[in-house]
């Protein structure tokens, strides 16, 4: 088969490019994408299942900060996103739906402490305290 080059070039000159110019526009992310975790401490029952099923041991059960000890006396999951493989097993096993994976994939950072997600975020602690 001979490749008809000239008509193809002309067609490609007028047609839209196949790529998207990423920071300015982005392909839609489908529902069910496995991205950053969202965690609701009020739904959590501290059953420890997510920490047990996590293949990479990215989830560690920690106590709440001093100010919140009264309201949240048990241990809650702290997610280390640097270790996470985004398998969503924690979401599947969670009996109350407290931990969920969101569509957010903008996770790169220059600060290594940013990858650790505390059950009650440090920022929130500062704001309220």
């Amino acid at each position, binding site marked *: 088969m001979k490749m008809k080059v000239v008509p193809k070039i002309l067609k490609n000159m007028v047609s839209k490019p196949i790529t998207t110019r990423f920071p300015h526009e982005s392909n839609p992310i*489908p529902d069910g994408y*496995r991205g950053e975790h969202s965690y609701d401490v009020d739904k959590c029952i501290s059953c420890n299942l997510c920490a047990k*099923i996590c293949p990479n041991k990215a989830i560690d059960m920690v106590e709440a900060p001093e100010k919140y000890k009264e309201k949240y006396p048990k241990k809650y999951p702290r997610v280390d996103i640097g270790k996470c493989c985004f398998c*969503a*097993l924690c979401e*599947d096993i969670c009996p109350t739906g407290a931990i969920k994976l969101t569509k957010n994939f903008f996770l790169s950072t220059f600060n290594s402490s940013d990858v650790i997600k505390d059950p009650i975020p440090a920022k929130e602690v500062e704001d309220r305290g």
Partner: protein
Amino acid sequence: MQGTMEKIDDDTYELFFGPAHPGSGNFSVKLKVDGERIVSARADPGYLHRGFEKLMEYRLPLQNAVLSDRICVLESLAWNLVHAEAVDELMGVEVPERAKYIRVIMAELSRIQSHLIWYGIISIGTGFDTGFKLAFGYRDFILDLFELITGGRVYPAGYICPGGVRRDLPESAEEKILNVLDKIGKMIDFERAENPANLARLKDVGILNLKDAIRLGATGPVLRASGLKTDVRKEEPYEVYDRFDFEIPVRKEGDAYARFQIGLEEMEQSVGIIKQALKDLPDGDFIAKEFSKPKLNMKIPEGEAYIRNEIGRGEAGVYMVSDGGIKPYRVKIRGPSFLHIIPVLEFLLRDAQIADVPAIYWSLNGCPADIDR
């Protein structure tokens, strides 16, 4: 080709192919060359050894399903399937019909995208850049499907898990898959057009005859290109492959061009299989009842199973032994590339020309990740 040259004696030099060569992956071949001729070749794997076989002994089958993605990154869903089948057989799980169809669809989509990479890598290795860019562009459409169905573009995170699949197909999936298959069809037409660049670089290069192929342990496309009509999907039908009508492409020449053509023909067959599977896709559960919620204390009954599957690169196998605990006692993973790019490659490179190394290497479609595991 990059690397250092070391003089051995007056006539022979040692030359490295890889491990940092674009496309060779984490793998290198030490070539002893006399002028342009290769006297002997020695494969040097181990840049990516992660000890998955041992690691799986420490983890639950559910976690191992996630791990099985990483055996070969380019064909994660196919490896998911082999692992899941081994656990299914040991546990005696009745996989729902719908799950079986979804598994077939995903495994075939995975085969198409793996063959597109193969086409792209061969093209760039033999100096045909357009083919590389087109193939990777079209592969992206399939990755979009994976993102929609499994939630991840490259790593499906054990989408095909013991008992079925982790999620049902979304409503829009069927239409989108058919849409992508049409696009892939166009790509295949483009690929099948006789291309002088490929012909010149691949024809009569790296000829492997049938007797050698069997002795060296070649399977899959490499063996079929040498003239043996064999395919695990036909010989030992797993899942629902016996219900579909498809051909096994065979060539007699055994050279790099024949292997390359087999890959292209298989893509056409895979498109056919997916269309048939989508047509007959039954309703019902997508995962067996006992697996619908992850459990931490499921015992694997004592026993052993050896599962063979046909993946894009050849024959994949998982041998799993259980002593009745919740974790597998021993898992052996048999990857096709282990034989293709150690004994077969060493054999084919002997007495070849340096310029033919990329053509031979990429015509075998090796994945260093599944040698090293």
